[in-house]
Structures are given as C-alpha cells and as structure tokens.
C-alpha cells in the first residue's frame, strides 16, 4: 500500500509568539517549527498501517518555506517514513489550507497513493480546510474527523469511524481516498537516535510550487489579552472554602445552575 502523509511545520507548543512589525501575522523569526499534534497522530497512523499491511510505503509531503519544511520532513523520516517530498513555497503563498492543497495536488498526482492522510487541522491556523480541499482537487473521496482507521484486505477498502454530535458513524471507503484524522486516538512514537542520524542523510525530493497568491489575506495578529487577576477565596476550614467556591461557580461564573 502506498500511503502519503501530509504534514505542516507549526510553532513549538511552548513558543511565545509575537506579531510582525506590520502587525499582520505572527513573526516566524526565532520561532522553532516542529512536527506536532495532529500531524504526529497522522504520521503514527500511517506507520501503523504500514506495519499492518505488508510491502507498504509511507511518503511524507510538506509545503512551505525552508528550512522548517525540510526539518519536519526529516522528523517524519526519523519516525519511519520511507521518503519525503518538499513543495517549496513561501509562507505567503501556502499558509492557508486551500493554497496548501493547490500547491500539493500536482505533486501528489505524480506520487502513487492509495491513501492520503492528514491531521484534522493544522496546529497553527486550525482551519480544517486542507484535507477536504485536497480531496476535491484530486477528485477522490475525502473524510474528516476519522478514528479507528483500518484496511480490509479482502474487500480492498478502508473502514473507519466518525464521531459526530449525535453518535458514531461507521464508514467504508474505496482507494484512493483522503482522510483527515481526529487527533490523539493513537500514541505517537518517539524517533530513535539512530533513525535521527539516518534521517539527516536521507534525500528529500524538492518540487517548486506554482506561484499563486493566497485567497485569504491576513490583516492583523493579536496576542490574547493578559489574564485578569485570579480571585482568592478567604476561608478558615476546607469545608468553608469548598462552599464558597461552589457558590461563586454558581452565582458568578454561572458554570452550572
């Protein structure tokens, strides 16, 4: 089985973002970009499928600027992906989901793929558009919020579930298809040191992205307002503290009636 997993470099969780000088976006200068969150889950899912289905290969792809795109692709190879393709684009042309899908679709057309995996949304912009857009551009079925993805060799189909507001749906899909995974229903592995060393020497195929302005134009990036002061509860006994807390939660915070 040929599995393509789409990943995006996102700022490390502990990063303290700052706006750029013109205030339109988060300043990437000095920010460490990593393979994280949703994408770790989808790489893990790709590797689990590879281990379950003999003679499978996992190909990682990323679109974006250097060097961060190359770094996350190397991280994916260190985890066990077999090969990688980098679609070289500036942050301006490919930072939104639709632009990323448009940049990647031609590259994917040239790669064998039975399954294209992605996280349910990018860990930074969180728009959740990419996988659906890619499915439409490739003209193949696409599904979001997927869990419990399995390959049924007898039927040559994928089976999976989708958790919805009202219940759990069970689905089947033919190949090829695009699947955006719900996060964290697997336990992403850690890259081993010898694999990290090996990943540094692995070749990464580079493809130039067609220049295209993004359809969405960021106007302003603001940090969340500083948190207002906490309210300290005065008490003499733990019981009194609990009673006061419950009263405040009911009457002031109104978190329950």
């Amino acid at each position, binding site marked *: 089985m040929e599995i393509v997993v789409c990943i995006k470099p996102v700022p490390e969780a502990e990063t303290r973002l700052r706006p750029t000088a013109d205030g339109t976006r988060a300043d990437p200068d000095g920010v460490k970009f990593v393979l994280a969150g949703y994408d770790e889950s989808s790489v893990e899912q790709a590797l689990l499928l590879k281990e379950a289905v003999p003679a499978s290969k996992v190909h990682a792809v990323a679109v974006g600027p250097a060097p961060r795109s190359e770094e996350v692709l190397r991280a994916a190879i260190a985890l066990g992906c077999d090969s990688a393709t980098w679609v070289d684009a500036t942050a301006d042309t490919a930072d939104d989901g639709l632009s990323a899908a448009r940049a990647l679709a031609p590259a994917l057309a040239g790669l064998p793929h039975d399954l294209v995996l992605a996280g349910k949304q990018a860990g930074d912009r969180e728009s959740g558009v990419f996988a659906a857009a890619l499915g439409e551009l490739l003209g193949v079925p696409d599904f979001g919020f997927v869990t419990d993805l399995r390959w049924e060799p007898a039927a040559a189909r994928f089976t999976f579930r989708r958790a919805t507001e009202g219940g759990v749906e069970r689905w089947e899909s033919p190949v090829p298809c695009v699947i955006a995974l719900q996060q964290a229903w697997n336990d992403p592995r*850690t890259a*081993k040191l010898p*694999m*990290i060393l090996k990943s540094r020497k692995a070749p990464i195929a580079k493809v130039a992205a067609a220049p295209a302005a993004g359809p969405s134009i960021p106007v302003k990036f603001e940090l969340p307002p500083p948190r207002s002061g906490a309210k300290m509860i005065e008490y003499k006994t733990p019981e009194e503290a609990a009673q006061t807390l419950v009263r405040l939660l009911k009457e002031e915070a109104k978190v329950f009636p």
Partner: protein
Amino acid sequence: MPDFSLTPEQESLRDLARKFARTEMAPHAQECDRTPRFPEEIYRKAYDLGLMNLNVPTEFGGSGLSLLDQCLIVEELAYGCAGMTTSIIANCLALEPIILGGSSEQKQRFLTPFCQEYHLASFALTEPTGGSDAGAIRTRARKDGDGYVLDGEKCFITNAPHASLYAVFATTDPAAKHRGISAFVVPRSAPGVTPGKDEEKMGHRASSTSTVRFDGVRVPAADRLGAEGEGFSVAMRTLDQTRTPIGALATGIAQAALDHAARYALKRQSFGKPIAEHQAIQIKLANMAQSVHAARLLTWHAAWTIDRGAKGSLESSIAKCFASDASFQVADEAIQTFGGYGYMKEYPVEKLLRDAKLTQIYEGANEIQRTVIARELLRGYA
C-alpha cells in the same frame, strides 16, 4: 572565529534527549530519589531510543557520536534526573576501555552485544583504599596457565549489581605501581564475581552503587585489554574521554536549578512584590546564569578540542572541575532563593544540591582535576 551554532542534527539529538528527560525521567525523579529505586524500565526505554552506549563506534552497531554530541545529550538527561543519567552513561565509561584498548576481535565480541540488546556494564577501578591514587590499587591478577586469577575488592561501582560485564583494573606486580596494572573484561557470570548490596547515598539515588568482590576469578588472557601493564594508561585515557560529559551532566543540574529559582522568584511575593524584583535576588540569578553559561561553554570547548583529535586533558579537567563546582554553587543559591521551602524535600531544589555534590567527587575528584590543570599549566612556564 569559533562557531557556537549547533547543526540541525545536533539540535535533533538534543531535542530527543530533552523530550525523554522531561517526559520519562523527571516525573519519576523525586520518587526514585526518595525510595530510593533503580528505575530499570526507564533505562530500558533510554536504551530503546538509542540514548545509551553513545560512544560505541558505528562498525560495532553504535551511534559513534562525537563527544560534543554526547555532551548535548548528557546535559539534557541530567536536567531530568542526574542519578538516572549516571546510570544511563555508566555504559559509556565501562565500554570506553574496550574501545580504546581492545583488539578488533575484542571490540566485536564485547561491544556488539551491547548494541543488540539492553545490557549494563560497570567500570571497576576504585578500591576501598585507593580512589584518586589509582596507581595504588591492590586487586591482584596472578598469572595462571593461559590466563589470570583475580582477587580483590572494588568499591563505589556504578550499576554493579545490575551489570553483566565489568571492566576491571588489577595489578600483576604491586611493586611496579601503575606500570603493573592491566585491564580485563570480566563477565558477571564468571565464578567468584560477587557484587555487594546497594550503598545508601546522599544523592544520585536512582543510580545503583556497590562493591564488587573478585575471589579467585579466572580470566583468559584473551580478555585482557592491551598488553600486560598497559591498564593504567587505558584507565587514564578512558577518563580523558568521559570527564567532559561529567561537566555536561553538572551543567544540566545547574540549568535545572537556575530554571527552578527564576520561575519561583517571579511568583513568590515578599514586601509587596515578586522577589525577582528585589536586587538581592536579581544578583543571585545573574551570578547563577553566568556560572551555567560558563560551565556549558567550557564543556563544549573541551568536547570540541577532543573531537579534533587532541588529548584535551587540560580542557576536560577545567570543564569538569568548573562545571561541577558551578553546579554545586548554583544549586546552593537555588535553595537560598526558595528560602525555607528550598530546604524541604517537597520542593525540587534540595535534590539538585545532593546530586551536584557527587559531580565534584566522581570520575576524578576536583582536587585531582586541579592537580592536572596545574601540571599542564606549569609545563608552559618551565
């Protein structure tokens, strides 16, 4: 001009060690220190991720990392728990005599299994009556047919109760002092090898330390490293390699102490404001930051020097000595910053002081390091 930037590969190695230290080691550090407990499941995980046997060359299945790479990893591990780090890197110390003094057949035979499966090894040099004075060791190796018979006792041996292999230094001729010492590889399974019970230690309590007795232990000549009488040289060259990572280990403790102190100082209020706004605390933090930075740079420089093929005795002694003294001082100041809370076991900084203390003693006490530094220094003036 020197270039202090790390390569992307080095950053990846450091990230791996950092993640392991903070997610797998640190959460268990307090419990393993208090009980005390030797967390073998953590050491196995470290092995699985490739964080053990960092110095074994690639031809025998190791990673063959440079000393600077090793230092980056060791500093991060020590940030999570110095005691666990001591046990994780003890294999590097125990296998280095084989790397430096072994024939290619011996390297193949002894090193390869360590890269195929989790095993621990111990470096057995120190004796009850001779630590710094390594030339005075009393463990005897008597010629016996096509081999030797070992008799004696080693002490303060890291991981000894759990090791499957020992690098043992013994004398064939006590009168010849250091020229009579030879190095041997002895399996734990050899009849007459008896590790003692775990010592109760002040710090590094997640690590295991004991005596090892050798009573009439037969060792074939094929398991002697190098020629007879070369053991002292093998031991000293081993310590030239492993001293610098101890500087990195001490730096990791110091960085942890600084981080705890700075975070606490921003939260803790006194006289109506965070104590970080009091100049007395600012001066402490500034001094701590200088010590940590200097310790790290000296360690990097020593590693860089040795990686370029130089012996680096002076540089590694300066790095180990300075970083370990700095580590103790920074941990001390971290406790002072925490005040009464710092003295309580509920808070993390008192452990750092107990852990830092050992770095001034083991792998060459700092008095020995200063002797080496002075000797190398004065050579330039004579």
